[in-house]
């Protein structure tokens, strides 16, 4: 059986391309730093700045921490890793021995008392035995338990749905009655999916990223759509896939994020006439995946060649790329599996 191989393209300056260079790449290139590794054993997550690789129960960092790591470096203080998540400049790691935060806590991203960037993992004061999942956002962190969710960090635009505070100092229960199974974050907004597959959102709506026509900020959880199969957030837009395979996008559109050739923000969901099995967003781009046909459709900001089309021009209408099995994208970086 032929083994899958990772390819990368986009912004290379942070070392997230897993290549020998930190130059931008606009044609997907095989990830040199992952050659000879058993890719079936790897789990990779990254944001626009930092990345983590889980191999077995060990974890490695790469990307722009205090310094740039183009070669993944093991975080030796931590093992028996079960879950991990990358925010813009911070991460959380859950192990059999506790919950850890690492990276920037300058904006109280993971609720440590000291506001600085940590190169070493810091154990966080939370009952880790009941954690179902952990999620890091732009300058926030979330913990998902079976019945409750908790948040910490910046809340200026109500990113945490916790009233009357611009910054939440320690993990605090979020006012959501529904049981939440998945959370994803934009730059200043948050989406949460409940167990009955209803999508909710709160935070900034300045570009229509929360699908509301007349409100700048959403100060209480808003129901956005039922029957959700998949969803993802860009910085100021989001895309959804429903159970009956309809794709919708709303929010910022001036850089091609909507893929409709109009360069306009959409304050209501706009349906996209493309069949997809998954949806993904870069910071200012949208990628629709059709795993059945092994093709992806890309549109949006492409200044760093992050759409993998072999050029650096923005794309305003979805373009197809063939022979791609799966992708990961965040910021201006894309990791593809062929």
């Amino acid at each position, binding site marked *: 059986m032929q083994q899958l191989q990772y390819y990368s393209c986009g*912004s290379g*300056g*942070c070392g*997230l391309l897993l290549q020998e260079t930190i130059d931008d790449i606009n044609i997907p290139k095989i990830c040199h730093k992952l050659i000879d590794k058993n890719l079936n054993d790897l789990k990779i997550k990254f944001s*626009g*700045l930092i990345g983590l690789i889980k191999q077995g129960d060990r974890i490695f960092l790469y990307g*722009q921490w205090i310094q740039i790591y183009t070669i993944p470096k093991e975080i030796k203080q931590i093992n028996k890793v079960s879950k991990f998540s990358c925010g*813009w*400049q911070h991460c959380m790691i859950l192990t059999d021995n506790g919950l850890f935060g690492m990276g920037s806590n*300058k*904006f109280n991203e993971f609720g440590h008392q000291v506001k600085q960037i940590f190169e070493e993992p810091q154990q966080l004061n939370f009952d880790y035995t009941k954690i179902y999942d952990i999620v890091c956002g*732009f300058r926030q962190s979330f913990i998902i338990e079976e019945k409750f969710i908790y948040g910490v960090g910046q809340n*200026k635009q109500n990113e945490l749905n916790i009233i009357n505070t611009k910054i939440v100092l320690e993990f605090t229960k979020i006012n959501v009655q529904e049981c939440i199974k998945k959370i994803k974050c934009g730059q200043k907004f948050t989406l949460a999916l409940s167990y009955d597959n209803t999508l909710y959102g709160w935070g900034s709506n300045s570009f229509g990223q929360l699908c509301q026509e007349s409100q700048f900020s959403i100060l209480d959880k808003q129901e956005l759509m039922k029957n959700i199969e998949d969803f993802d957030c860009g*910085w100021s837009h989001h895309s959804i896939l429903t159970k009956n395979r309809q794709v919708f996008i709303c929010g910022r559109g001036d850089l091609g994020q909507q893929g409709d050739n109009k360069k306009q923000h959409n304050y209501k969901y706009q349906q996209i006439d493309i069949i997809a099995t998954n949806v993904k967003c*870069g*910071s*200012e781009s949208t990628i629709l995946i059709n795993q059945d046909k092994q093709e992806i459709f890309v549109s949006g*900001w492409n*200044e*760093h060649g992050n759409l993998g089309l072999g050029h650096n021009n923005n794309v305003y209408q979805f373009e197809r790329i063939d022979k791609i099995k799966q992708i990961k994208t965040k*910021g*201006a*970086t894309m990791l593809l599996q062929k």
Partner: protein
Amino acid sequence: MSVYDEVEIEDMDFDSTTKIFYYPCPCGDRFQITLEQIKNRFDIAQCPSCSLQIRVIFDENSFELYSKQQ
């Protein structure tokens, strides 16, 4: 001038040693503007890695406030 976004100065990360304000750029690099530029009422922060720029929102007290930080 067309800017990518507007950001309040309190949301920027201020390095009191270099006297430079930073804010994340969607490309992974950081928009930057100096305290001296703020003093001169220049309000455009540039990303060194791409074409995007942001407008920094500040008031007449901002320079004095941040110039005291060590």
